[in-house]
């Protein structure tokens, strides 16, 4: 299975995302921000980093890039898209996911191994987890506090659109300790901590993150 990995100017984690796709048994395909051709991929990853230098707001400019002009309609038609960290911010700015990510509650950049609980395993990117599985993956962000209005929060909870919650401390002040959400169809997922940095215990705190990628690759083989 071919999975696209987008590189914007300022993206950092595209190589780790591509490596994760490979570990999961898929074939990573590099997608450049200035291109409009999705090259027939069966899924797309928007990796972490600082797209376009995070100018204006995180993800605000990336939303208008040529590749996003191709990804947004494809995602609305069911193409699986995973946004990690900055990718999550891009998905919110693109209105593929509701809400917004704001400065961490303590205003400091956080970098640590974080325990999260997978609370919805029905999405395109979480079906290889077991229900309520707790995993530990790196968290590294300055603007990771998930915010939305009360009505949106209620809808997210009622529709089981929360994918993962922080366990123990809520590190960045996200509403309802939300670490990741999905859209109503379950094909678009945004996650603040980094599963692509935790696919092999040699290079990460665990190999727990790999299941995000095998969720897609296994299901579509």
């Amino acid at each position, binding site marked *: 299975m071919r999975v696209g990995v987008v590189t914007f100017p300022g993206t950092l984690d595209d190589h780790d995302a591509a490596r994760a796709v490979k570990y999961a048994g898929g074939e990573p395909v590099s997608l450049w921000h200035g291109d409009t051709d999705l090259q027939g991929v069966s899924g797309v990853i928007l990796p972490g980093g600082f797209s376009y230098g995070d100018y204006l707001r995180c993800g605000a400019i990336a939303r208008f890039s040529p590749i996003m002009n191709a990804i947004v309609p494809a995602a609305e038609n069911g193409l699986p898209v995973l946004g990690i960290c900055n990718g999550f911010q891009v998905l919110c700015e693109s209105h593929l996911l*509701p809400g917004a990510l704001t400065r961490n509650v303590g205003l400091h950049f956080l970098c640590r191994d974080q325990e999260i609980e997978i609370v919805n395993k029905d999405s395109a990117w979480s079906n290889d987890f077991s229900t309520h599985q707790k995993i530990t993956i790196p968290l590294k962000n300055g603007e990771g506090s998930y915010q939305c209005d009360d009505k949106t929060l209620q809808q997210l909870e009622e529709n089981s659109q929360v994918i993962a919650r922080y366990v123990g401390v809520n590190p960045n002040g996200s509403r309802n300790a939300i670490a990741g959400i999905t859209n109503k169809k379950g094909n678009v997922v945004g996650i603040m901590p980094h599963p692509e940095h935790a696919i092999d215990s040699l290079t990460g705190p665990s190999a727990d993150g790999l299941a995000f990628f095998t969720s897609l690759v296994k299901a579509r083989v």
Partner: protein
Amino acid sequence: MGFTFSPTSVRQGKSFILTLDHLPSAAELKEIESAATSLLSNPVIETFTIRVEN
């Protein structure tokens, strides 16, 4: 710190100053408002006001 003024509120925030060589028409103002909504601000977390100065 020795300041004696007592404001009733304090606001810190972003401002964008767009300079045109003419006063904006109603249509242009509408377009600027659209840019403010879709690009310059995120209405999920921010509010904005537009002010025209001659």
